[in-house]
C-alpha cells in the first residue's frame, strides 16, 4: 500500500483567523466539541504549520494579516490544501472594498475549497474539509515542489506546465 493512501486518514488542521469576527472560529471549534467530534476522522487542531495538512482560513484578509497568511502557507510542507471558511474568507463579504481590507484569501494563496455562510455552520465546515481531503489525496508532492532555476530548458517541467498538469489531474475533463 502506498503511503499517500494515509493522507486522507489523518488530516491535521491549522486554523488561522485572518481578521474575522470570530463567528466562524467558534464554529470550527464546535466541530471539535462532542456534538460533531471531527477527531473521530483523525483530525487534530495542531496550530503548528510545519505539521499540518489543511489550512482553514476564516475572515477577510486585512493588511496586517496578509503577510502572516502567506508566511504560514509557505511554512506548511506539501501536500497541503487550503479551505476558506465563511463568506468573508471567500470574497471579503461585507468588508469587501473597505480601506483596511484586502478581500478574499484567494488573492494571495491558492484556495482549494470554498465554504460559504456567515458564519459557516459546523456541518458545512465538515463537508468542506471532507471535500478538501479528496483533493489532498490527489495532490502529489512532486507537482508542488518549488521549481529549481538552474541551467535547464525553460519549457520543460516549469511551474506553468506543472500547474496545467495539476489541473488536469484534479479536474479530469
Amino acid at each position: 500500500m502506498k503511503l499517500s493512501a494515509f493522507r486522507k486518514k489523518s488530516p491535521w488542521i491549522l486554523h488561522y483567523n485572518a481578521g474575522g469576527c470570530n463567528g466562524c472560529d467558534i464554529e470550527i471549534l464546535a466541530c471539535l466539541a462532542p456534538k460533531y467530534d471531527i477527531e473521530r476522522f483523525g483530525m487534530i487542531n495542531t496550530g503548528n504549520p510545519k505539521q499540518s495538512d489543511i489550512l482553514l482560513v476564516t475572515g477577510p484578509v486585512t493588511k496586517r494579516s496578509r503577510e502572516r497568511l502567506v508566511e504560514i502557507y509557505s511554512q506548511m510542507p506539501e501536500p497541503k490544501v487550503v479551505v476558506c471558511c465563511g463568506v468573508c474568507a471567500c470574497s471579503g463579504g461585507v468588508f469587501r472594498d473597505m480601506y483596511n481590507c484586502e478581500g478574499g484569501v484567494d488573492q494571495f494563496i491558492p484556495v482549494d475549497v470554498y465554504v460559504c455562510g456567515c458564519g459557516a455552520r459546523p456541518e458545512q465546515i465538515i463537508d468542506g474539509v471532507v471535500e478538501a481531503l479528496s483533493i489532498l489525496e490527489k495532490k502529489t508532492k512532486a507537482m508542488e515542489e518549488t521549481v529549481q532555476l538552474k541551467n535547464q530548458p525553460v519549457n520543460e517541467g516549469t511551474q506553468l506546465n506543472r500547474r496545467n498538469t495539476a489541473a488536469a489531474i484534479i479536474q479530469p475533463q
Partner: protein
Amino acid sequence: MRILLIVFAPVIGGLIVGFERIIRARMQRRIGPPLFQPFYDFLKLADKRKMMVHSSHAFLGLMHFISLWFALAVLLLGGDLILVIFLHLLSTSLLILAGFSTRSVFSHLGANRTAISVLAYEPVLIVIAVSIFMLTGSFTAASVFSYPAPLLFKMPLAFIALLLILPIKMKKSPFDVADAHQEITGGVELEFSGIFYEAVFTAKWLDYIFCYTLVYLFAGSNVTLGIALIGFVFFFTNALDNSTARVNYKQMLRFSLAVSFSLAFVNLIINILL
C-alpha cells in the same frame, strides 16, 4: 519476552496512545479516533515533504528517540536504576538542545519548560531509586523484578510520589507545561516536520512504556498486581488530564518539590529506620 517488549516497544506504545485517545474521547462523551490512528499519523508524516531547519536539529531529535529506546532497554533488561534515570535525562537533554538549536521563540520556550520539568521530577525519581536500594539492597531493576514481596506495600508513599510526577513525564494536565499545546503549540517539537517529527512523535510512545515500567517496578515479582497498577495509573492519569487545567511552571515546580519530593523523602527515611 522482555526482548520482544524492547523490540516492539514503539508499536506497543503506539497502541497504548491509540487506546488512550479512545478512552479520553469516551470520558468526554465523544467517539474518538480509531485504535490505529497514531500509526496512520505516522505513515502520513512519512509522506510529507521534509522541511529541515538544519541537520543537527534533525539529528538531535533522532538521537532523542534512540537514547530513550536505549534507556528503556536498560530498564527492561534489569539494569541499574540510577543509570536508567540518567539515560532518560540524557535523552531529554538532547531534546532540550534541539529546542535551543533553532531560532524559534516557541522552541526556546518549550526547551526552557522541558528543562524545568526535568528539575521537577528528577530528584523524586532519584530518591525513589535510593529507597528501592534501601529496601532491596541493590540498585538494579532485576533485583526488584525478583523481589518476593511487592514494593507497593513496603513503600506506598513513594508510589504516591511517582503517581504525582507521572503527569509531568507523560506531559499531561495539570503539569503539561512542557508540551502546552494551546499555548506554545508543542514547544520543542514545533520546528520538527515531516519524517523528522516522527522521531519526537514516537519518542512519546516510548516514554509511555518507560513510565508504565516504572509503575510496574512497584509490583515486584507479582505480575497480576503489576498489571492492576498499570491499569490504575492509566485511568488515573487520563481522568486527571481530562478534569484539570494547566498550572504554570512555578506552581508545578513548587508542588512537585514540596509534595512529591517530601513524600518520597519521608518514605526514604522510613525505609532507612525500619
